[in-house]
């Protein structure tokens, strides 16, 4: 795929630079000429939208860090200071807080697109795994960021989640103390989470670079899942996809701006406007919405399995739920990528999406019937989908006939 360079240095300076550090050639190859399947639909624009989200979070975050004070006595008021007294602070702070939610909206859509169109299948396994790594890093970053305003949910969310570490046999308590910098969430925790919250986005950016590199080796998957055969199947990335992605970004900014300007607090929890108080436990501790599906899986294991107690069991289930994603390229061995051509897969996939939304809903509910039973059922389906349904479907399903090329599928659609 690297044989598509049409770059000819325009003048002596460009020629000089090209012989020493061919950045212009690189940019022309990868940001402009890169051959991209011409049939990508709008679900494919979320990659570019995610790059924008990361950029927005980094830029607003750097500005917030100029005014924020990571100290248990001052943190809460310093966030209010940003909202009240810093020029433009209320917009920057709201953009950062809402931006976290919008980031996850885009992230989940991007992942579910990959799961439907089989974008994790050979030769894109590494691309997919890097994506899962980005997801895990983003989750960690968002979790630590939520601690920083030092409200009641910040504090108690951190307390509940950090207890996960203590479930690990033998070394659990030591790990928990290392993470928190003490026996409980306190000033050292706030300081190290602030430091890591500033560090991780740059690590994410580096993994994003690898993710895009891994994308540019095999090239994009596409909605019919047939590999690119020749140049008639593709268009240059620029201007065709730069334009389409930019349009999608602007559309994505509309709900983003809606929340920032008209409902900046609706995605949060009122309790986080109460300063953290280790002596008062909120009636109902809930993590942010984007962590809820995994929180439900954590809580669903409320029974002991042989020598594994329920707490460790929950942690194993939650970790397993994330690890399932890493091995999905080897669980789904069907040769056909796109769900469109898989008559049985389609339905199980639809149920998986609904199940994931249900897991999210259940995470916000109290630990009482019928929620606890539903949580177990939904958790079971989550694992069944990856560990049983995908491998079995790959063997028993007869896919619909695939078009021979992207061009053929496009023409078929045009004349249908």
């Amino acid at each position: 795929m690297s044989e598509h360079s049409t770059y000819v240095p325009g003048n002596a300076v460009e020629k000089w630079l090209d012989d020493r550090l061919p950045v212009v050639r690189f940019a022309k190859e990868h940001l402009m000429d890169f051959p991209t399947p011409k049939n990508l639909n709008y679900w494919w624009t979320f990659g570019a939208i995610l790059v924008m989200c990361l950029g927005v979070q980094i830029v607003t975050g750097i500005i917030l860090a100029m005014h924020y004070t990571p100290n248990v006595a001052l943190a809460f008021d310093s966030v209010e200071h940003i909202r009240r007294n810093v020029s433009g602070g209320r917009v920057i702070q709201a953009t950062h807080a809402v931006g976290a939610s919008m980031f996850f909206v885009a992230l989940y859509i991007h992942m579910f697109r990959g799961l439907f169109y089989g974008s994790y299948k050979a030769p894109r396994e590494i691309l997919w795994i890097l994506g899962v790594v980005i997801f895990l890093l983003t989750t960690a970053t968002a979790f630590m960021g939520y601690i920083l305003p030092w409200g009641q949910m910040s504090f108690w969310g951190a307390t509940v989640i950090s207890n996960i570490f203590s479930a690990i046999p033998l070394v659990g308590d030591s790990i928990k103390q290392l993470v928190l910098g003490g026996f409980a969430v306190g000033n050292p925790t706030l300081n190290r989470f602030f430091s890591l919250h500033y560090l991780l986005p740059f690590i994410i950016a580096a993994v994003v670079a690898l993710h895009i590199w891994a994308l540019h080796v095999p090239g994009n998957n596409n909605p019919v899942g047939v590999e690119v055969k020749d140049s008639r199947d593709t268009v240059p990335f620029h201007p065709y996809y730069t334009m389409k992605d930019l349009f999608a970004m602007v559309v994505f900014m509309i709900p983003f701006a809606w929340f920032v300007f008209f409902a900046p607090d609706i995605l949060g929890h009122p309790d986080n406007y109460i300063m953290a108080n280790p002596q008062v436990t909120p009636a109902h501790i809930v993590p942010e919405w984007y962590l809820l599906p995994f929180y439900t899986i954590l809580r669903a294991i409320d029974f002991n399995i042989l020598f594994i107690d329920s707490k460790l069991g929950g942690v194993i289930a939650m970790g397993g739920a994330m690890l399932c994603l890493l091995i999905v390229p080897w669980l789904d061995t069907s040769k056909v990528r796109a769900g469109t051509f898989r008559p049985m897969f389609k339905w199980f996939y639809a149920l998986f999406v609904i199940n994931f939304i249900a897991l999210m809903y259940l995470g916000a509910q109290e630990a009482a019937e019928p929620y606890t039973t539903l949580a177990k059922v939904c958790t079971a389906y989550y694992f069944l989908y990856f560990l049983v349904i995908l491998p079995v479907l790959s063997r028993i399903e007869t896919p619909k006939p695939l078009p021979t090329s992207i061009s053929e599928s496009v023409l078929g659609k045009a004349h249908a």
Partner: protein
Amino acid sequence: MHKLIIAAAALVAGLSMAPAAQAAEAGAHVERQAWSFGGIFGTYDTNQLQRGFQVFREVCSSCHGAHLLAFRNLMEEGGPEFSEAQVRALAAEYEVADATADGGRRAAVPADRWPSPFASDQDARDANGGSLPPDFSVLAKARGVKDPFPTWVFNYFTAYQEGGPDYIHALLNGYHDEVPEDAPHGSDGAPFQLPDGKHYNDYFPGHAIGMGPPLSDGVVEYAEAENGTTVPHTLEQYSTDVAAFMMWMAEPHLVSRKQTGFAVLIFLVLFAGLMYGTKRKLWSGIEH
């Protein structure tokens, strides 16, 4: 994909129908009020904020602090909009601690924050039967109303953000002199027991609140407007006004935030339209 969305919506609806019995502990249903600042077009009513400030100053502030409120905020645009002279005179009536002043105290200036009624949280507890009167600075956003299923979905589209003032208004009107007949029974079936020094409130979680009924008809004397109109001196009026003032205190830039929002959204929608036209023109020669 449409099928998926419909199916997902149906499932969520199904899930949320099942349990309705959990609300008993959380308190009675809070009625939504018609706030001038509600909805996307809402702005603060300056006169209401001035009245609310009067209630806060004459009643609430004897126990509740507001440490993020600066005197100067009271003259800022989109707030109660007192004149600078009024704010200077008001500030001068208060003393604040200042380690660099003679005797450690001096008269306040507009740049100072609202002085707290108690020197420490412990002093506040000691003076209030063990209960800590919460600081008012962001209290209106620290309280909310938990809506049942279909309602909260609509909240995202109506931008309903007034759960806090709704709750505060309900709380101030929710007192009973005696424990009412319909008070919830304990888990062992015993009748509701109100601890000594507590008061029964329909809306407070657990119903036993440390604060006695702070407002009642006629406790605050509102000034007559220049054109001779008056507002009623009732609990209902006071509680509405002070809840509105507390919302302003928690969200002082609400008006300019929404104004900016309109400019941003109108720009984005138009820009998206232009981008779409450009994209279509560009792709018109490509079969895809």
